[in-house]
């Protein structure tokens, strides 16, 4: 398909010959690659150390490598949905016929991005892909934007997440704003129109903004306890009002006292139905043109991820039929409602890491029929966020209504006992909650409890997920994510 030529991209390519023979860059790439091999031999999917070491030798490594991409890079940031949105965009680009690099969640900090680029580069420091589709942590967004000069960005939403690392929401918002200001003027910005904290970041007269949003009726379930993380108008600080509220603070908002309101989205979801095979049947509208597609992902949060990917594809002028086909082929990302089968038991793993995301996951799994086994695993390593107080903002009270369907609940991880207290104070019988801090033993315990044809839902936070994923690999289930990557290529 036709691509608009970006003068900036060519200019950088010309200057590259100097860069390629820069010994510092080569040293950085080699040390990064060697450490990557070593950590994998040791059985770890190390994404931090290689990048850190490479950045130590050549702080400009990401810029140097990204400038070689034939088309350029795309950045996906925001609190929830980055990984799934990145995977969906990757699918669409592949369907179009492009070769892409994309990073895995957990490697979305500055050094993780460097690791991903180094991994794809040859030992001579060359990259042969068209696109790099990069998910970037909100905190690293300005730095990565500055170094890779993206052709476009996607901002999914802002929620409370890992407060120990980011400080408060105001902080995250500032970081995203800073990143946007560093963007080349020609780059497009795909932005969630339903998130009042995002539309306010950009001055309305800004060009190249593609808004996306839901045009559905309000959901039937009542507004839950999570609270709206964003309550006030970013322009005049008055409390926002809503015509429709989908979840948390996402919806059709307006300020009752000034002109601030949800911008009219160009990319809309106008129809949504869950099929008998657990897929979402969607009616989408892109700049006035409607089309239908069925995507094998569930949950309201995934509707936003799908829209975000479509908005990004719109920014790249990819035809609608290609978008629709690519979306049909979507598979759940690593640990996002990922399914496994073991001895006639169904295992479904869904990452939980903040109140809004966890509430949506709980709602989605409790919508399923039949008996449920649960394994909730909470670590508090740095990659998880060391503050686990968010557990108290998750509506575990939802479980109460389904008590008779709950076969067994096991809690695990470094903060297993905190999780046990959380469930006890949700009103569940604490005598029925198994506590096993060791993740490996907890997984086997839960599998024993799960009856044939039963469903075991594993809800881990980040590092607990990585560890249990390895355990599942040892049982012959799934693949480690670096192997998966190799297969995908």
């Amino acid at each position, binding site marked *: 398909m036709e691509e608009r030529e970006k003068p900036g991209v060519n200019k950088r390519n010309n200057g590259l010959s100097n860069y390629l023979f820069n010994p510092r860059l080569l040293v950085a790439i080699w040390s990064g690659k060697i450490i990557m091999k070593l950590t994998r031999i040791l059985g770890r999917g190390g994404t931090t150390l290689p990048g850190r070491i490479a950045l130590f030798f050549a702080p400009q490594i990401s810029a140097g490598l990204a400038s070689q991409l034939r088309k350029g890079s795309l950045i996906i940031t925001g609190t929830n949905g980055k990984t799934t949105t990145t995977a969906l965009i990757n699918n669409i680009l592949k369907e179009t016929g492009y070769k892409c690099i994309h990073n895995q969640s957990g490697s979305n900090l500055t050094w993780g991005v460097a690791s991903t680029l180094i991994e794809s580069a040859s030992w001579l420091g060359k990259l042969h892909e068209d696109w790099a589709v990069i998910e970037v942590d909100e905190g690293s967004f300005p730095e990565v934007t500055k170094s890779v000069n993206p052709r476009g960005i996607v901002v999914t939403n802002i929620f409370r997440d890992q407060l120990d690392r980011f*400080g408060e929401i*105001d902080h995250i918002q500032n970081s995203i704003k800073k990143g946007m200001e560093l963007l080349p003027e020609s780059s497009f910005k795909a932005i969630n129109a339903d998130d009042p904290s995002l539309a306010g970041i950009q001055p309305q007269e800004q060009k190249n903004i593609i808004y996306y949003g839901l045009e559905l009726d309000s959901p039937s379930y009542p507004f839950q306890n999570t609270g709206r993380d964003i309550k006030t108008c970013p322009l005049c600080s008055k409390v926002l009002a809503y015509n429709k509220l989908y979840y948390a603070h996402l919806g059709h908002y307006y300020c009752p006292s000034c002109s601030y309101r949800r911008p009219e989205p160009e990319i809309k979801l106008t129809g949504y139905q869950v099929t008998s095979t657990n897929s979402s049947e969607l009616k989408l509208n892109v700049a006035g043109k409607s089309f239908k597609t069925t995507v094998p992902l569930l949950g309201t949060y995934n509707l936003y991820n799908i829209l975000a990917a479509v908005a990004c594809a719109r920014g790249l002028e990819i035809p609608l039929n290609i978008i629709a086909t690519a979306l049909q082929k979507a598979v759940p990302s690593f640990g996002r409602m990922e399914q496994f089968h073991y001895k006639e038991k169904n295992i479904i793993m869904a990452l939980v890491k903040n109140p809004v995301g966890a509430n949506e996951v709980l709602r989605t799994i409790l919508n399923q029929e039949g008996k449920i086994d649960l394994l909730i695993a909470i670590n508090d390593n*740095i990659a998880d966020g060391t*503050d*686990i*107080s968010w557990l108290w903002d998750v509506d575990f009270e939802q479980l109460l209504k389904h008590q008779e369907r709950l076969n067994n609940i096991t809690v695990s991880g470094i903060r297993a*006992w905190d999780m046990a*207290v*959380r469930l006890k104070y949700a009103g569940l019988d604490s005598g029925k909650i198994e*506590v096993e801090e060791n993740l490996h033993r907890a997984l086997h315990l839960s599998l024993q409890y799960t009856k044939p044809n039963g469903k075991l839902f594993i809800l881990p936070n980040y590092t607990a997920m990585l560890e249990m994923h390895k355990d599942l690999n040892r049982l012959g289930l799934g693949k480690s994510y670096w192997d998966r990557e190799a297969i995908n290529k």
Partner: protein
Amino acid sequence: MRTINIYHLYPGYLNLYGDRGNILALYQRAYRRGINVNIIGVDPGGKIDLGHCDLLFMGGGQDSDQKLVAEDLKKRDRDLKHAVENGMPILAVCGSYQLLGHYYTTVQGENIAGLEIIDLYTEPGRGRLIGNALVKCSLWEPPQTLAGFENHAGRTYLGPETKPLGKVIKGYGNNGSDKTEGAVYKNVIGTYLHGALLPKNPWMTDYLLQKALTYRHQDNHLEILDDFVEIQAHNTASRLAGLRRP
């Protein structure tokens, strides 16, 4: 039947660090002893019927929310002070703890006037004080530890007569330098500890419940509960305190 009315300010605004957990802990531990609990959420501008309130809980908020709330609370500070002098218990965590003092200066240099309930003030410092913390608290006999998580940019300094909630064993506390954490005046408790604080420090929860019962002239006897799970969570948090810094 014994009844406690708990007012929660403002559930939609000051609810940053799992503050709902504190309300849940108060509710569950009262409920298990057959004490009836009414939880009344108040929004900014809404009415706090102080004649009806037995325990006031205020959580943490972001700077932008805190400003809004401070303005609103200022309008009712005379009634609030009156109730405090009569012994009404208050638990204020993090952002609202800062509001109990004379003033709070944000990192941006903005001055937010406090309620002047406790003699203390808060100023910005370099870097946030973040991590698991452990504090020795002598509000009850024998003294017991409080385990929680702190995350604050403000440094709070207590007036010469102000009693701290406890002594820092591990972590930063009020300001990272004088080893004090939180503050107490009559039955008002301010603290930087969240996590949430009350669920894994059940002795603190029971202390507040007893104060609330006494304030309303009710029998304050609390039967002993099985706290095995809570104590395990307390011990985990105590072990982690001071070990890791993000």
